[in-house]
């Protein structure tokens, strides 16, 4: 099979997200612009231009929100429909490299990403008025990725020390620790019903964890490459994963559609060396991926 459609972009696309109505697709681009494409026309309908030194912290699909980080560590949120800046928080630190926005938009989570030292890294929960709700020690070596549960009750982070930690979003209490992973997980997301946490990374395997017990529910057969991105379809029945090849930046990788219940591979597509972002449209009929190229690839499902 082939990619069903490509939307061209003037700049390399790193992250993608559908708008809540599914009519548009936002792409965070290399040139510090976030472009919003009208899906029917394939044209840019909105361009959000980040200030110098600003970077994208979170672009959750189906939420119409973009969160950016300034060089000084301030957090800004933007409305993808209007292009307007929403809130500005002073709280984060200059090392902050990654953000997540809760589905109810009541809090944000920040981490320091790849840490430059051996000290314990912190994941922080921020109120939308800028107050810090909690800060949680999150392992040695930095946070690879994190996720917030659909009911806004849990925050999980995957550390480069190969542990996954889960905390109560209410007070930062540690509620789960997955220590049985041998290597770091680069991509992580909750199922839409919140009952499963899917993780995948350096050892090419998709793991599904029961979020009630934090025990392994099942795992899929290894991919050809490492996995750098992962998404559930809105009904939870499908998982899309994107590959990652660190050795040569020219090697194409697989983009794989799995059946959640069995791990069965339903479809395989090809992306460039690192598929950094995958997303499903709110109606589940289209999926998109970004692989650092001057286009976004669309799959009809």
């Amino acid at each position, binding site marked *: 099979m082939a990619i069903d459609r490509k939307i061209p972009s003037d700049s390399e696309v790193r992250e993608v997200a559908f708008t809540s109505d599914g009519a548009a697709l936002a792409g965070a681009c290399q040139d510090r612009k976030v472009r919003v494409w009208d899906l029917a026309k394939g044209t840019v309908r909105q361009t959000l231009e980040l200030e110098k030194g600003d970077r994208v912290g979170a672009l959750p699909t189906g939420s119409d929100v973009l969160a950016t980080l300034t060089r000084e560590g301030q957090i800004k949120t933007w409305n993808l429909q209007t292009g307007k800046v929403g809130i500005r928080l002073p709280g984060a630190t200059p090392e902050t490299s990654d953000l997540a926005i809760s589905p109810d938009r009541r809090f944000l989570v920040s981490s320091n990403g*790849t*840490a*430059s*030292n*051996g*000290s314990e890294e912190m994941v922080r929960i921020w109120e939308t008025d800028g107050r810090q709700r909690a800060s949680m020690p999150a392992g*040695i*070596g*930095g946070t*690879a990725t994190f996720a917030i549960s659909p009911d806004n009750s849990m925050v999980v982070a995957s550390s*480069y*020390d*190969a542990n996954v930690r889960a905390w109560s979003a209410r007070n930062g209490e540690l509620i789960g620790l997955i220590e049985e*992973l*041998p*290597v*770091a997980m*680069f991509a992580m997301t909750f199922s839409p019903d919140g009952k499963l946490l899917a993780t995948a*990374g*350096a*050892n*090419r395997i998709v793991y599904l964890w029961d979020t009630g017990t934090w025990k392994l529910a099942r795992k899929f057969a290894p991919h050809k490459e*490492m996995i750098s991105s992962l998404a559930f379809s809105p009904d939870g029945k499908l998982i899309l994963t994107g590959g990652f090849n*660190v*050795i*040569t*930046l020219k090697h194409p990788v697989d983009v794989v559609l799995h059946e959640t219940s069995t791990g069965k591979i339903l479809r395989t597509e090809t992306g460039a060396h690192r598929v950094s972002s995958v997303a499903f449209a709110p109606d589940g009929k289209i999926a998109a991926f970004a692989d650092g190229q001057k286009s976004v690839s669309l799959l009809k499902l």
Partner: protein
Amino acid sequence: MTIHRLSRREIFENCITRGLLLSAIPLSQPQLLSAWQEEEAKAAKPTPKDVLGPFFKKGAPNQRVLHTAGSPGFPLRVTGKVTNTRGEKVPGAKIEIWQADHAGLYDLEGFRYRAGLITTESSDYAVETILPGHYDDRPAQHIHYLISAPGYRTLVTQAYFATDPFFEGNPDKTYTKMAKSRDLVRTVTLIEAPGTPRAAITFDICLEKA
């Protein structure tokens, strides 16, 4: 009874007064003290930190030989010792080491080019491996280290090679392209092994108390 701990200056002055420290250097006492303290501080500097990277794997065996017979790559011996900032040995320290193979690939399925060493009473360590390969994402040869010991701050760092073409023969200037500190770029010594030459570096580790 209160024990009065002498300051470094008081000890130094006592030693000079009692003839325990003789100076053949034409420096005043304060100059001597500051030179002495400077040298001591230099010796006690903790090993600089560097990033952990994405490819740490838990559970590496305590093995000294990281390559298998006939595996490609230029043979390399890495030796060193683990001490604290006071110069004391740290026996029982755990040294996790991992590196890419000659082609720049990390073994994520098994434990090739990975070790979890425990330092002995002498606090020395040594591994037989190969010079790590290059890869596009981080194009300088490097060996990852994660060192932990009870009572000490965990250290995450990396060793680099002064001979790496990446440093263009001038790591004093070019180390900033990759390494967090010039100290992490090590001089390579060629040594004679039965039949073949091999490379060697020393990488001593100095830990800070927790």
